């Protein structure tokens, strides 16, 4: 009898403990690593954009050295954001139906609109207005194919007068102001996709959109710190410590709010202990022990909180090299921690049965569509895109207009150098 039992259990429910609905007993969770990456990448977009708006809208002058870099980061990552979503569809060729015949009660259907709005109306336009006069100058000074590209990017608008520059700046400012709620919308709705699933106690949570927005801001700022330091290192340039300190400060405060909200979420879950709490407790203690407790909480939150918090208190006593190391390691840890958080939400929500009677194991494959390799490629793709963009739009060889986004109270803008 025992043998029969074991055979049946092994054959039918290969990696389940307890009971799961028969349709849930698949080898892989329905939403795998691709859906983990999707909110991660859009979160980085939203966070990097908020970082850029600190300069544009909130006049944080110390952050000017990273203004363009953070905008380009947001743009490069936004271009890659829909790829994991697209690849995971059963019928990718029907993806445009989401925009052509959207079902308006579905949070996923809003994706098309929010994405298009953010890409076309906010980021692309803001970048263009910001770069327009540079494009005019570069198209004249750069020979060959690259020059042609810049000429193409001007879209025929070659007016580089001071008045036109003022107009560019004004429109850019308005776009930035519109961009902040748009960035919140872009990522808040991703949180809502999960938060609205009442069938799943791990996801169905009113705080989910806010948690997603806050963690997006944290990860986006961390990515800007990372990109800025790496770019400076590659170019053998010294990092602007004032800029880095200010970035570290914003990173710290965003992380404090993020950690507070996520802690509140867990306190509420533990205190109210609603249906499904036992299975969630088991998940946190067993199935997600490493990614949740070590990855998300310890590495991704507590250690950076201590490091960055220390720097807020005793910044002047820490030598620059140590400070740089502390900022860099905090940024790295936060980037890993937020990735772990996305994993815990997406995969964690599928590692228990909706009958709340069983849990499931998950071993990620290496080469398949939802495997390690694909995940790594999709995670590298935005960095490759960003490298190309930095070569094209942030090149050291090109003279810039000495970007000063708040021209009203700042020194007058330098006119682009002409050959």
């Amino acid at each position, binding site marked *: 009898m025992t043998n029969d039992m074991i055979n*049946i259990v092994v*054959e039918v429910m290969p990696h389940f403990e307890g009971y799961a609905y028969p349709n849930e007993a698949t080898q892989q969770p329905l939403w795998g690593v691709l859906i983990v990456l999707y909110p991660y990448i859009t979160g980085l977009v939203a966070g990097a954009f908020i970082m850029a708006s600190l300069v544009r809208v909130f006049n944080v002058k110390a952050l000017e050295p990273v203004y363009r870099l953070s905008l380009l980061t947001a743009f490069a990552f936004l271009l890659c954001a829909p790829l994991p979503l697209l690849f*995971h569809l059963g019928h990718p060729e029907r993806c445009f139906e989401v925009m052509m*015949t959207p079902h308006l009660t579905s949070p996923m259907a809003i994706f098309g609109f929010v994405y298009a709005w953010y890409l076309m109306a906010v980021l692309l336009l803001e970048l263009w207005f910001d770069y327009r006069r540079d494009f005019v100058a570069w198209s004249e000074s750069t020979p060959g194919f690259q020059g042609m590209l810049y000429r193409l990017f001007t879209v025929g608008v070659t007016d580089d007068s001071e008045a036109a520059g003022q107009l560019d700046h004004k429109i850019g400012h308005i776009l930035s102001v519109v961009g902040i709620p748009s960035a919140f919308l872009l990522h808040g709705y991703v949180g809502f996709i999960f938060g609205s699933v009442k069938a799943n106690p791990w*996801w169905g949570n009113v705080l989910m959109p806010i948690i997603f927005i806050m963690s997006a801001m944290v990860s986006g700022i961390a990515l800007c710190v990372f990109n800025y330091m790496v770019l400076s290192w590659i170019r053998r340039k010294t990092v602007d410590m004032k800029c880095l300190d200010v970035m570290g400060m914003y990173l710290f405060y965003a992380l404090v709010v993020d950690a507070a909200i996520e802690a509140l979420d867990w306190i509420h879950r533990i205190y109210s202990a609603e*249906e499904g709490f036992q299975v969630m407790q088991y998940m946190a203690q067993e199935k997600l022990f490493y990614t949740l407790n070590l990855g998300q909480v310890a590495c991704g939150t507590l250690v950076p909180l201590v490091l960055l918090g220390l720097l807020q208190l005793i910044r002047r006593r820490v030598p620059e090299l140590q400070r740089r190391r502390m900022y860099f390691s905090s940024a790295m840890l936060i980037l890993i921690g937020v990735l772990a958080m996305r994993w815990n939400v997406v995969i964690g929500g599928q590692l228990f049965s909706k009958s709340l009677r069983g849990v499931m194991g998950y071993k990620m494959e290496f080469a398949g569509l939802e495997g390690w390799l694909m995940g790594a490629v999709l995670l590298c793709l935005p960095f490759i895109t960003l490298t190309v963009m930095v070569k094209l739009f942030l090149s050291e060889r090109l003279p810039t207009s000495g970007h000063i986004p708040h021209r009203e109270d700042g020194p007058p803008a330098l006119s682009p150098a002409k050959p």
Partner: protein
Amino acid sequence: MKNPLSRRSVIGRISAVVAGVLAAPAAKAAKAVTQKLLVSADAPKDYDPTKHKWLMAIDANRCIGCGLCAEACKKENRVPEGPYFRTWVERYIITKPKPGSGAARGETLVDCPNGGINGYPEAPVLKEEIQHSFFVPKLCNLCQHSPCVQVCPVGATFDAPDGAVLIDPKYCIGCGFCIQACPYGCRFLSPVTKTAEKCTLCYHRITRGLKPACVEVCPTQARIFGDLKNPKPDDPLERFYRDNLVVTLKPHLGTEPRLLYAGIDKEVR
């Protein structure tokens, strides 16, 4: 007024264009729903979905766990082999409490190997330790507020006017959101078509006056099927409602299932 481009005429033209742009998707959607129902749902051409209201009910007291319904469903609807089921039968075993534990009941053990098609292994506890044992057939709960329909990004899954919740396989993009949203685990992503699939109440059969396959083969009439708009004399559904107090699954989620159960325990979810 003489100027052909007066402000009023320009505003009028612009609003006409805007109205046209806004109305086109609505008209298209309405047309699509009608077409979807008639073309994709395997119904005969003269079938009028507004004249029926199909419903199933489960009398768990009668279920003997033979699994014929799950097998018939797999065959009738060409459901893929493996962990893919439009209907299945769960076995519940509630044990007696341990002596002196002070509890009224023991553990609840649930299993459903291969949907119940091949029967069940011997109970993992001794016969003397069992307090209750019963079977619960499961299928689409036919929710009035279906979360699966709500979340579909393209409207490929929809509430038919006759009570069935259907999926247009030519329209489904295979995102899996409906599968995540169904609290009852009634949907799956077909490895063959790469689209979501679920119980259709055997739509191709009921629209031709036949019963769903699972109802047809059930030897104990644990599954009761009928048309609320066209009750037969001594209708089995009416009899079921008259004779039983009924419950739905997971009522706290507010999905308002139309599928009603008689004779199940609080442990069933």
